[in-house]
């Protein structure tokens, strides 16, 4: 028994790596289709955007990089689809220096291709990347043109039809920050607190715990926590908009709902190994105590 326990505790970690690899790869290649239940914070974010009227302004800030794209991309794209369906005007920008702009451009290209009737500059605009996240938000609170004089193509904002009536963050119905790191918090402390603009945050699962404090304090309209939050949003979208339901069921592209299958299997593997490790650890400690008592 002692030999088996020692073997277990000193298990070659490459076996664990192999299990993790299989646990991720198999559900992505062969989706299981596990159910997703929605939480209050995701529902409130969804309903808030749902209550907006055509022509309202929504800012989607790409505040993440490729490292967390599988979690964050589905959030940004889901909200973009909802806004496009409702003809809400979408202002896209990136404040994360490590790839935020590239991810924003890729997501816009992907989602706008699904809505060929929408026009760049009338229904959506990409303001590009600007360094100094908190400083940019503060400036946008007074003057958006001061922070972003031109869009990503170099067109002055004054020449972009949908930007003509938009001067400051106070006119924006909601800011959606899809965030990793600190930038999501800056939107709350610098933009919401100083300009009053409502904020929805879409953090990674690792970053989500800190946002519960802001959620409890009423400083956030809603939150999409990690891949689960994104999968919940996809479920809400599919239930409200049948065309998106068909899209999410039929697409061969990666979706958060598919990602949840892999995440469930990985959580199961990790929990299983934590339990195995603890049982082995306790039995060794009990054996050592017994030996010491003798």
């Amino acid at each position, binding site marked *: 028994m002692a030999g088996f326990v020692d073997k277990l505790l000193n298990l070659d*970690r490459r076996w*664990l*790596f192999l*299990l*993790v690899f299989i646990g*991720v790869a198999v559900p992505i290649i062969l989706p*299981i289709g*596990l*159910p*997703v*239940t929605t*939480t*209050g914070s995701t529902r409130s974010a969804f309903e808030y955007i749902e209550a907006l009227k055509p022509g309202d302004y929504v800012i989607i800030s790409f505040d993440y*990089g*490729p*490292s967390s*794209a*599988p979690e964050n991309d589905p959030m940004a794209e889901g909200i973009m689809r909802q806004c496009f369906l409702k003809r809400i005007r979408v202002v896209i920008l990136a404040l994360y220096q490590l*790839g935020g*702009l*590239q*991810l924003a*451009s890729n997501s816009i*290209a992907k989602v706008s291709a699904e809505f060929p009737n929408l026009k760049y500059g009338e229904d959506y605009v990409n303001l*590009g990347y*600007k*360094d*100094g996240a908190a*400083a940019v938000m503060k*400036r946008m609170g*007074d*003057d958006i043109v*001061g*922070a972003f004089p031109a869009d*990503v*193509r*170099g067109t002055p904002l004054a020449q972009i039809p949908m930007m003509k009536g938009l001067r400051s963050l106070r006119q924006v119905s909601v800011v959606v920050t899809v965030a990793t790191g600190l930038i999501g918090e800056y939107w709350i402390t610098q933009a919401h607190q100083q300009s009053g603009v409502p904020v929805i945050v879409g953090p990674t*699962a690792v970053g*989500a*715990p*800190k946002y*519960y*404090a802001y*959620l*409890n304090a009423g400083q956030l309209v809603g939150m999409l926590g*990690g891949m689960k939050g994104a999968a919940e949003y996809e479920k809400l979208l599919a239930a409200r908009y049948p065309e998106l339901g068909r899209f999410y069921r039929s697409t061969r592209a990666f979706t958060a709902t598919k990602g*949840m299958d892999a995440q*469930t*299997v*990985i*959580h199961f*593997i*990790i*929990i299983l*190994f*934590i*339990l195995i*490790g*603890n049982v082995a*650890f306790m039995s060794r400690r009990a054996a050592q105590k017994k030996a010491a008592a003798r």
Partner: protein
Amino acid sequence: MNFEFGRVALVVLFALLPIVGIALGFFVPALRARGPLFVAFFAGIIPILSLYIPRQFLSGETGMRPRLDQWLIIVYGFALLLGIVNVIQNGTRKIARREKGWPYSAVLMTGLFITGGLGIWGAVSGQGITTLPDGSGTPFKWIADHFFLPLQATIFALLAFFMASAAFRAFRARNTEATILLAAGILVMAGRVPLLEFLAAPFPPLQPAAAGASQGLGKLTEWIMQTPNGAAQSGIIIGAALGAASMAIRVILGIERGYLGLGGGE
């Protein structure tokens, strides 16, 4: 001519004053630190005053605070430039001296110059760095899409393997606190995913019970995240904010001078 007090004050405080400070520093070395201290004082105090004194020259559309906000964005740009200069200095020195790991620096320099060069070319030529009007990507975007994005995603993906291994080796119920943490961690991990439905999938009669139990577990997880976690996070955030405020006051009043390179409290 329209006299703008705010604009004149900014020129005096952030252009003339530093120049006088630098000049004084040449003649009287003991006064060298005085200029930056005054600049830091005014840069810190003006935004605070603008919140309490609603005067046009302070917080109006073209007042001192909005202009300082604009300057802040420009300063951030220069900070990025300083970072790049620092990377180039360190990298080239390492390569020139053939220090340990110099080939990595050579790769870094190559990547920096090629990517940066294409980015600058995009800005100069007016193409930008994302897509061209015909929908095709710029050379900068090609590099980002085919090198940067997959490399960064790959590095982060490796975390899944190391986290699983670390959890197996280190997440042990060694004492009461560790056991509470372990229990909470397992509950949240199980409650954030449809784990029970996954386990019940091969047994159809168990599925309704698993769905019900999963809902209960999900509610428990949300309670853990909202109540104990939310309370702890609030405490951490408030503590950090108070610390930041006190540090800001120390910098504004010139008590904290570490940023001058003279050592704290000098």
